[in-house]
């Protein structure tokens, strides 16, 4: 592992037997896993390049158990790493050698569906797709749809503020969650929000979402469900250059259209996807756009015509509209299989996740091609074109010495480039351990200190999921001293010009 994690606490490692016994007193039976072979299943999440066997795994079933686990750990100075389904691509659930891994998979029930208020109350271990499945019969769905939606849990979605292909129109997790129950590291249970739209006081709900499991452990989630659109139709549009495709995207938005989804793929991604699922993609194009439009059939028809006209004006070389749902799903099949498809043409791939202002797309892709040549590694691109979220997939072979490090270095260069053109390090995968050490590229020491102030308000002992997000986690008392206090100001009387 090339990544530096906090030095394990020898004292905690020595107390392992005592810790396991204490957890068994809280969660009986098979809810505590201490057997070394069984622990292996938890050694990494979706960022498989990094592995670490946890100290012990505990799988509670009730909020009270979570509360007691956290209180005991807090009182005995033991770190805790929360985990949902373990699909994070940024190592958000990477275990620590000296930490309890708190798995939330047993919190797997849909507690209530309230159609008059259009909300569902679910436990955090429920998968993203299971929410939609629970409400589909009544004509509703849960909008955010990360590509791991079959497996990823809503608790993990909350922790990472997961997105998906529909978030341009329907928002990210944060825009679709109305309330949570969570447990602080101290063991205190806190409920915020609910079925109403506004919550009182500071927007703690808004900061819990996307906090990468570092502020509290979510034990219940209230999500907004939406009536499913009456119809959806997709366009598959090919271009002979990425620039033309980019212009088409801008023109669609300038026309006042926010499509339900607008995805772009580059040549390598198109070819890999077509070879894998035979979606019917044109192979003689440099960029492919999938534009999905939804609403009443009359609206779909109108928008399909409008977008087709825009595509023709933007020099599209091929345009086809789905004639039925089967065709629409076929258009998506290639895009949705893009990651595994790339996995077929390369022993390994490394998926990046920056966001850029869309106007910089052509420039970023050109610079990426130069980097690709100098690193000697291929890169395929899939792009949430509407919101500028770029997923370069770097192709490498982990069995060749040094190639993983080269891929990581290439990836870091891409993310630096994203920030340089006015974008950000991560659009939807989270910082985790993966982008932790790049945070200073985007934020100053003072910026990061202010983020950590929030951490200190929730978890002053820094015991919950340490080693993630912050390149340096300052002790909270130290953080306070780093800053200005009344009566002890730096050069208060110096004149300023």
């Amino acid at each position, binding site marked *: 592992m090339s990544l530096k994690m906090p030095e394990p606490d020898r004292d905690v490692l020595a107390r392992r037997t005592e810790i396991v016994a204490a957890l068994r007193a809280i969660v009986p039976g098979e809810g505590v896993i201490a057997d070394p072979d069984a622990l292996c299943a938890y050694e990494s999440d979706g960022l498989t390049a990094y592995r670490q066997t946890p100290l012990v795994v505990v799988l509670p079933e009730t909020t009270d158990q979570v509360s007691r686990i956290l209180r005991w750990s807090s009182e005995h100075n033991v770190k805790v790493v929360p985990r949902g389904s373990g699909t994070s691509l940024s190592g958000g659930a990477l275990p620590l050698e000296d930490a309890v891994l708190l798995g939330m998979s047993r919190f797997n029930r849909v507690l209530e569906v309230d159609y008059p208020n259009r909300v569902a109350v679910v436990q955090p271990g429920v998968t993203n797709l299971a929410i939609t499945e629970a409400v589909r019969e009544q004509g509703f769905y849960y909008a955010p749809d990360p590509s791991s939606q079959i497996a990823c849990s809503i608790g993990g979605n909350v922790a990472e503020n997961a997105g998906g292909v529909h978030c341009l129109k329907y928002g990210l997790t944060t825009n679709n969650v109305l309330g949570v129950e969570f447990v602080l590291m101290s063991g205190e249970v806190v409920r915020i929000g609910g079925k109403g739209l506004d919550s009182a006081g500071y927007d703690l709900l808004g900061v819990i*979402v996307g906090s990468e499991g570092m502020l509290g452990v979510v034990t219940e989630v209230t999500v907004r469900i939406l009536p499913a659109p009456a119809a959806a139709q997709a366009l598959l549009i090919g271009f002979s250059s990425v620039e033309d495709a980019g212009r088409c995207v801008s023109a669609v938005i300038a026309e006042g259209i926010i499509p339900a989804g607008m995805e772009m793929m580059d040549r390598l991604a198109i070819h890999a996807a077509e070879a894998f699922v035979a979606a019917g993609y044109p192979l003689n194009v440099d960029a492919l756009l999938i534009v999905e439009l939804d609403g009443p059939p009359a609206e779909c028809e109108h928008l399909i015509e409008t977008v087709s006209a825009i595509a023709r004006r933007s020099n599209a070389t091929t345009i086809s509209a789905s004639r039925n749902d089967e065709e629409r799903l076929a258009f998506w099949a290639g895009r949705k299989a893009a990651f595994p498809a790339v996995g077929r043409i390369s022993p390994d791939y490394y998926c990046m996740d920056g966001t850029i202002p869309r106007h910089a797309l052509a420039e970023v892709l050109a610079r990426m091609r130069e980097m690709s040549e100098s690193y000697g590694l291929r890169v395929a691109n899939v792009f949430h074109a509407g919101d500028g979220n770029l997923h370069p997939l770097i192709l490498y072979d982990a069995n060749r010495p040094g190639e993983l490090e080269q891929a990581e270095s290439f990836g870091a260069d891409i993310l630096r480039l994203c920030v340089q053109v006015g974008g950000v390090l991560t659009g939807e995968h989270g910082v985790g351990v993966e982008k932790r050490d790049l945070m200073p590229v985007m934020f100053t020491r003072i910026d990061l200190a202010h983020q950590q102030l*929030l951490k200190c308000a929730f978890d002053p002992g820094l015991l919950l999921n340490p080693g993630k997000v912050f390149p340096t986690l300052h002790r909270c008392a130290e953080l306070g001293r780093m800053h200005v206090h009344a009566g002890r100001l730096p050069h208060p009387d110096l004149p300023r010009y």
Partner: protein
Amino acid sequence: MVASAVIQPRDVQDVSDAILDGARKGEALEVRGGGSKQGIGCGGRAVRCLDLAGYRGVIDYAPSELVITARAGTPLAEIEALIADEDQMLSFEPMDYGPLSGAPPGRATLGGVVAANTSGSRRIASGAARDHFLGFQAVSGRGEAFRAGGRVMKNVTGYDLPKLMAGSWGTLAVLTEVTMKVMPRPRTAATLLIAGLTDRAAAAAMSRAVGSSAVVTGAAHVPAHLARLLPVHTLAAAGTSVTALRVEGFGPSVTVRLESLMVLCSKLGDIAVSDETDTRALWRFLRDAGPLAGDDRPLWRISVAPSDGWKVPAALGNVAADWFFDWAGGLIWLAVPSTSDASAPLVRGAVAQLGGHATLVRAPLSVRNAIGSFPPQLPGVAALCQRVKSMFDPNDLLNPGRMSAPIPAA
């Protein structure tokens, strides 16, 4: 709040200096934009006013990126006019609080809109300011300038501090620069009006409409007594309550959405349709709590689960109140008789039973200071909020007391 000295910062350093100076002297600051929301919250011990209204100007606006960045003191009206020229809007439909407290309209600033997490009738479909607030620069109560979020639509780099700032009423940091998401303006709009529903029946009708695939972007119910004030011509003369359902979008889409709503609602009562011009006027009026803007009675803004909204006025017994509903019943604007406590125990009691909360958005300062403007919180949440406050503003310099919770009756 009455602060004597006024500081008008020219740049971020001036803001930082003012806070550091306040820290040194132990003098708190009242942070103010256009002053349109001065009638909300409790008065504090602020000695000086940090007036951001002059710190204005658009920094960057690229319509095709759907993003705008401006200094915090930029008037909302200026932003809205600029983006309207590109057929875009702030889709959370920020209301103008000014007229509620007798101030002229159009004084709100972008920073104030965010600091108060303002929204409007489109909240049910598009969210509030928090949902469109992408990034900022601010100076915390520690006197340090910092940035969080970004200038792109999709970003999860670091904690979502924009959410923390939205709705913090200037008590954690002074916003200096704000980046917002903008959206295309709907090409047309129409409203279906239903006459004569009771509060309870209207709640059910709004729920069905919003839960249908018609994508309703506004759902309000105005009882008969206030309905006569509505700027609608068709049903206002009928002397009945009015329930309004708005649809927006491209022409063909609005037509079919409206038709589907008519099918859904035709048996409920007399129906009529407002055209685009009337629709815009009606929803602007509702957005700004127009039906209750014209008097000076204490005014509560109450948020509950939409299907529970109708129960709040029903629980008030014989208090002579007036009210109307927005957000499909989830938002209640409630005016109560002018008393020393603005019927707070009764209102808060009724709302607490339903798991919602009530904010006093119009009342004399003495009443607000006596009972608190903002809703009480559960002890655990209150303690957490207090810890956040003490982290960002350890010396309690920024808008001290403004969000203070009600003091329990002795």
